[in-house]
């Protein structure tokens, strides 16, 4: 009979195979990164523009300009665009975030030459039809209202406002009236200065066809498709003074809680250590917050923490939803866990478990062509290189409880934390 109390040996997780992209340029100097990996004949293309909400002069400009590009161009109506992508079983996505506006495409290799002419047209010649815009804005507005019914959304919005102030692109200050204040001409203006070759780079990944560079040059390498590179204005963060905030949402059964503070950016030497510290506290299923507040107390279905890194700022946040009768107790426990990290060394066994877990995650981050491309962008978009990952790997193998306690003392001071509660 097998002795089940004896655990099979655990082998150290091997460093993943990191595939670096080959970087090239189109004829008009648009940088293209080719990440060749995978076995299926599938390609993912991302057309990335400096067209995020950092560059807006009116709220919603970035998101709606980006979204309107699928609603019609000089040679194709919105319906035709949809029809062609669906017919080829391809997926096209439009996303705008704080800094970037992206159009991404996943397609079987054999269909790319049918699809790129349409991608070219919708990127270079969107029509911004006023009727289409009205329909889109109306639908987005209704969706916005729905999202605003959720306590976690209300909480996150207030939290971003508390951290960044009312006049910062990282603060979610969109109101329902902003949808009515925007005209399709505002989008055309934003489009003109954002979506052109000088603001563009392309990420290609998958088991790509050798002719892809040529194909991209044909559609996007045109020397006449130019413009002036977008200027990234400096914006000042103005944190609010008051450390506790409440958003009232009557009849909410659960309340959402956010506890957090501004923190370092990805290029700071403390960043990787903070990732480990965050994992111990609330970054994985067996984290201290989960063990204490979900598994021991049963106050919540889930609680987690994250270190968020944006180009111009970083922040740290603990997030959960809980019945209103557990709100105070939950917050008390959160601060207790922060204090424990400041005052007590993390036991070796716990730290080893966290580092092993993160090593496994590290391998997952490089598993498959799209994950590899994502990991490239996770450094490249921040002006960092692959040495970031080497340092991370070395740190996972070397970090000591003392190092983490120092970080906790430096960054987990209660007085620096903001608490936002949304609920009844």
């Amino acid at each position, binding site marked *: *009979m*097998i002795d*089940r*109390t004896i*655990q*099979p040996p*655990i*082998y*150290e*997780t*091997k460093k*993943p195979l990191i595939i670096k992209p080959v970087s090239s340029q189109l004829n008009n100097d648009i940088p293209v990164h080719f990440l060749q990996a*995978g*076995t*299926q*004949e*599938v390609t993912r293309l991302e057309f990335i523009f400096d067209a995020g909400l950092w560059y807006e002069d009116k709220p919603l400009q970035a998101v709606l300009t980006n979204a309107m590009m699928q609603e019609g161009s000089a040679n194709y109506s*919105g*319906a035709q665009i*949809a*029809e062609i*992508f*669906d*017919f*080829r*079983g391809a997926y096209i996505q439009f996303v705008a975030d704080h800094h970037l506006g992206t159009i991404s495409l996943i*397609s079987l290799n054999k269909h790319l030459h049918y699809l790129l002419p349409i991608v070219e047209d919708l990127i270079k010649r969107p029509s911004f039809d006023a009727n289409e815009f009205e*329909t889109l804005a*109306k*639908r987005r507005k*209704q969706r916005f*209202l*729905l999202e605003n*019914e*959720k306590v976690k959304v209300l909480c996150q919005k207030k939290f971003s406002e508390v951290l960044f102030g009312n006049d910062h692109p990282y603060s979610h200050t969109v109101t329902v009236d902003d949808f009515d204040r925007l005209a399709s001409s505002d989008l055309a203006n934003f489009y003109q200065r954002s979506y052109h070759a000088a603001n563009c780079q392309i990420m290609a990944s998958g088991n790509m066809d050798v002719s892809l560079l040529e194909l991209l040059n044909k559609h996007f390498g045109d020397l006449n498709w130019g413009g002036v590179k977008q200027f990234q204005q400096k914006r000042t963060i103005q944190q609010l003074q008051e450390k506790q905030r409440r958003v009232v949402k009557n009849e909410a*059964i*659960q309340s959402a809680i956010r506890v957090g503070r501004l923190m370092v950016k990805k290029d700071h030497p403390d960043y990787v250590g903070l990732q480990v510290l965050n994992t111990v506290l609330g970054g*994985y*299923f*067996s984290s201290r917050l989960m063990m204490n507040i*979900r*598994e021991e107390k*049963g*106050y*919540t*279905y889930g609680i987690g923490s994250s270190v968020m890194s944006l180009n111009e700022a970083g922040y740290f946040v603990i997030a959960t*939803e*809980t*019945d209103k009768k557990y709100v105070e107790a939950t917050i008390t426990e959160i601060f207790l866990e922060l204090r424990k990290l400041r005052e007590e060394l993390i036991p070796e066994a716990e730290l080893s*478990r*966290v580092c*092993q*877990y993160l*090593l*496994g995650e590290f*391998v*997952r981050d490089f*598993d*498959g062509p*799209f994950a590899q491309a994502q990991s490239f962008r996770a450094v490249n978009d921040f002006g960092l290189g692959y040495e970031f990952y080497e340092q991370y790997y070395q740190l996972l193998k070397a970090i000591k409880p003392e190092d983490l306690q120092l970080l906790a003392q430096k960054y987990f001071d209660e007085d620096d934390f903001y608490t936002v509660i949304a609920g009844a």
Partner: protein
Amino acid sequence: MVKFYREQLENGLQLIIYPDYSTPMVALDVCYHVGAKNESPERTGFAHLFEHLMFGGTKNIPNYDDALQQAGGENNAYTTNDLTNYYLTVPKENLEIGFWLESDRMLELDFSQEKLDIQKNVVIEEFKQRNLNQPYGDVWPLLRELAYKVHPYQWQTIGKDISHIEDASLQEVKDFFYRFYAPDNAALILSGNVDREECLHLANKWFGSIPNRNVKKAAIPMEPEQANFREMTVERDVPDTALYMAFHMAGRTQREYYICDLISDVLSNGNSSRMYQRLIKEQKLFIELDAYLSGDHDPGLFIVSGKLANGVTIEQAKKAVWIELKSMQQELVPTIELEKVKNKLEANLIYSQMNYLHMAQELANFENIDRAERINEQIDIYRSVASADLLITAQRIFSESNCSQLNYLAKK
């Protein structure tokens, strides 16, 4: 063609091995053939509660997550009306840790009143978070109860009434385990960077000694044919009025299922689909509108659900949906349009093969229906469906008397 191997252990455990050497990882997936449909109407939510309890440790391994995380692993689980599925992924070097963990909790759990009480509370908070505190959170319980009078699909996995969870006793929980958690009621799927011989060896080593528990499941009552139109209207504090229509349709093994899937794709898969182009974009009656299958293994539902644009009434919305459904009954879908939805299904199959974990879950799902081999029959069945099939099936299922309609009105 998805190439995989099947083995069977002496205790009845089915073993499915799908090698994919493009990843350094392995997924180990244990699918138990028990879902919310196997619960007693007085004791609902047990399959899902059990999913939580399965992480509470065993006598041999008090902390499931500890060892897994040491091995660089991750795990999770989900419960549906048909099955409970547990999966973990580890770097290939540490595959045996997965076998050790999963076999031990199939053998026996370390039950305690304290652990049960905590997980009951977590599930109750989950219920609040998903059902009570979300706008539209009670739609599915309402619609299920309207559409099913007999079949246990009438309740959700979280349970019909949260008191069933509150009242669950330790003895009931133990009984549930020994009744359903057994090698002869499960399948073990390995996908990713795996070797067939090694998997078979490890499966025998760790799962081979778990006794066959001679699982016998009670027959599930079949839903009788619906005879009359059912309608329910509720008013809630939500931003938009919503309309839900559910039609009974065939089960997962029937050809009609595939035909319904194609009908739903023609109606609403992608921005070029009929309902998106006509009812959202042109007529501006809806801000969201979808047609889809509940995906259940026993005969399930074809659902049309939408949120109405401001100022549109339920009557107008309903009429517009019926025009689209009637058109499916009266006119053949043009060949090129049918080709489009089939192309999309085929492309999706290739995309999904890029993900070893997804493949493990797909194989688990087909094995739960009856046999994993079905995964390779899908495309041929879809390819064999003609426009005339869509027309006949649309005529059969889209009738008022087969429809359950939920009007979910926004309180003004």
